[in-house]
């Protein structure tokens, strides 16, 4: 039963491949979709480091470096202290880009996820693709950012490149939770605006990013403990300039971030399954 439409397809093989590689096909779909806004991605990836490093590294550092102690990275300067935080903030920003409106569009505006699910891809594979695409973009963006940090002399330790992984972990943790949340949104997008204002922005400002968490009043410090960005930043500081902290705390940063990723990812799978299969 060959048709005018070209060679017949081996359906059994198609099903076998989809069961095995479906998560990658879902990721691939998102990567291709990025071409539509490649310009803004590149501008963010290359432009933001330059802007932030000049503003904070040259400008703000001139005020801060008059003081001393932890905030000047034990003598390395404010820029070295703030570099892992900048990397983490860039990761969270890029993660938001890929895990909010882009995910809502797949369910609601373009409904492409329903099309993927009508093909052999499973809801779990689609959710996994949504998380995996963020990991790939973060690895690329953080590597570029790291090169700028090197150029600005903000990476004294030879282990500094590990900051890339720390920031990617932090960004992915935020992304996994946001993918789950965005997948659950059916109505208008105002809850997303609230998440930005009440969760993401405070997280960026109060996670021991621009100044040590300890400078905050004690009752505000728990914000840091639950914030993936704080864990990613502290982890990054250990790598970036050998910030001294107990080894169990370093391990706790990694474990916490992995746990948040796992929970967010599992929630995303469950919500996607309910949404597509209901």
């Amino acid at each position: 039963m060959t048709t005018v439409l070209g060679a017949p397809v081996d359906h059994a093989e198609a099903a076998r491949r989809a069961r095995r590689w479906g998560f990658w096909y879902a990721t691939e779909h998102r990567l291709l979709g990025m071409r539509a806004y490649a310009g803004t991605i590149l501008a963010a990836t290359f432009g933001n480091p330059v802007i932030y490093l000049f503003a904070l590294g040259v400008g703000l550092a001139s005020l801060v470096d008059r003081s001393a102690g932890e905030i000047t990275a034990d003598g390395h300067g404010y820029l070295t202290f703030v570099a892992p935080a900048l990397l983490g903030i860039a990761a969270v920003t890029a993660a938001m880009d890929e895990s909010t409106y882009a995910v809502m569009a797949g369910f609601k505006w373009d409904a492409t996820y329903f099309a993927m699910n009508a093909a052999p891809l499973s809801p779990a594979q689609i959710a996994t693709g949504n998380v995996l695409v963020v990991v790939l973009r973060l690895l690329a963006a953080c590597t570029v950012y790291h090169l700028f940090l090197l150029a600005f002399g903000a990476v004294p330790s030879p282990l500094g490149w590990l900051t890339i992984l720390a920031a990617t972990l932090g960004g992915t943790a935020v992304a996994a939770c946001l993918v789950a949340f965005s997948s659950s949104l059916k109505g208008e997008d105002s809850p997303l605006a609230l998440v930005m204002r009440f969760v993401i922005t405070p997280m960026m400002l109060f996670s021991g990013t621009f100044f040590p968490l300890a400078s905050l009043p004690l009752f505000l410090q728990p914000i840091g403990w639950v914030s993936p960005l704080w864990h990613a930043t502290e982890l990054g500081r250990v790598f970036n300039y050998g910030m001294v902290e107990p080894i169990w705390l370093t391990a706790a940063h990694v474990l916490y971030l992995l746990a948040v990723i796992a929970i967010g990812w599992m929630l995303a799978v469950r919500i996607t399954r309910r949404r597509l299969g209901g």
Partner: protein
Amino acid sequence: MTAVIAAEALEKRYGDVAAVDGISFEVQAGEAFGLLGPNGAGKSTTMRMLGAVSSRTGGTLSILGLDPDRSGPEIRAQLGVVPQTDNLDRELRVRDNLLVYGRYFGMSRRDLGPRADALLEFAQLADRAKAKVDELSGGMKRRLTIARALVNDPRILLLDEPTTGLDPQARHILWDRLFRLKEQGTTLVLTTHYMDEAEQLCDRLVVVDKGVIMAEGSPAELIARYSSREVLEVRFGSEHNVRVAEQLTGLGDRVEVLPDRILVYTDNGERELAAIVGQGLSPITSLVRRSSLEDVFLRLTGRSLVE
């Protein structure tokens, strides 16, 4: 003939509400099968269960000999799905939509290139390959969605209201393409509101309402069973129809009074019209037409609006 779809007492409940309430039917290979019904009848829910993306809450369902609860990917690898609203990827260009969709079936990029070109040719979109999706007209988007559904050479094509919202030209082009697929042996399952579409395309159909099957058969069988050969429509003005209709009882098989006109179901419309004029009544307008699937549909599902 072998059944490619077999549903037995198929049921889908959301809490207390039964969207599909125990329907049974079979679809044979190569057949064009229609699901007709008003909004909310359970057509789309049924289609989603046939597409192996929504699990049933009761009954049995076999698609291509497989159970959708266990073999979703294996079934979906052999289906083409055209959903009610287009879900094309607007971030991708026309041809890329086909390439990316083919990847979901694990097809290699090398095989997909020529296949995408053949599909664009079939969908009469070859000159639009590089266009953005948003630049296409409604009919073109629909044809692209159908081309996309064919990328895996499906054995069954599921179409949920394929021509809703299209202009007459676009509908006729689409019907022509669907007819060719049928000629090539693809099994078609479609839902529609348009009775002319069902008469054009379907070998056999079921009328569903409130989640249950009201009638089943070929279009001609259904018309013979639930309507008459001809229908006479006469108008006496909105204020007189009811009063006049009392004088017409006994005409034809059945007389139905609507606010704007009176319908007489009969074997011979001209004869009934002569009888009416013979009674000294003079309708403002009169029309004799062949009975259609629409008459069957309205008889079975009622005339009140379903919202």
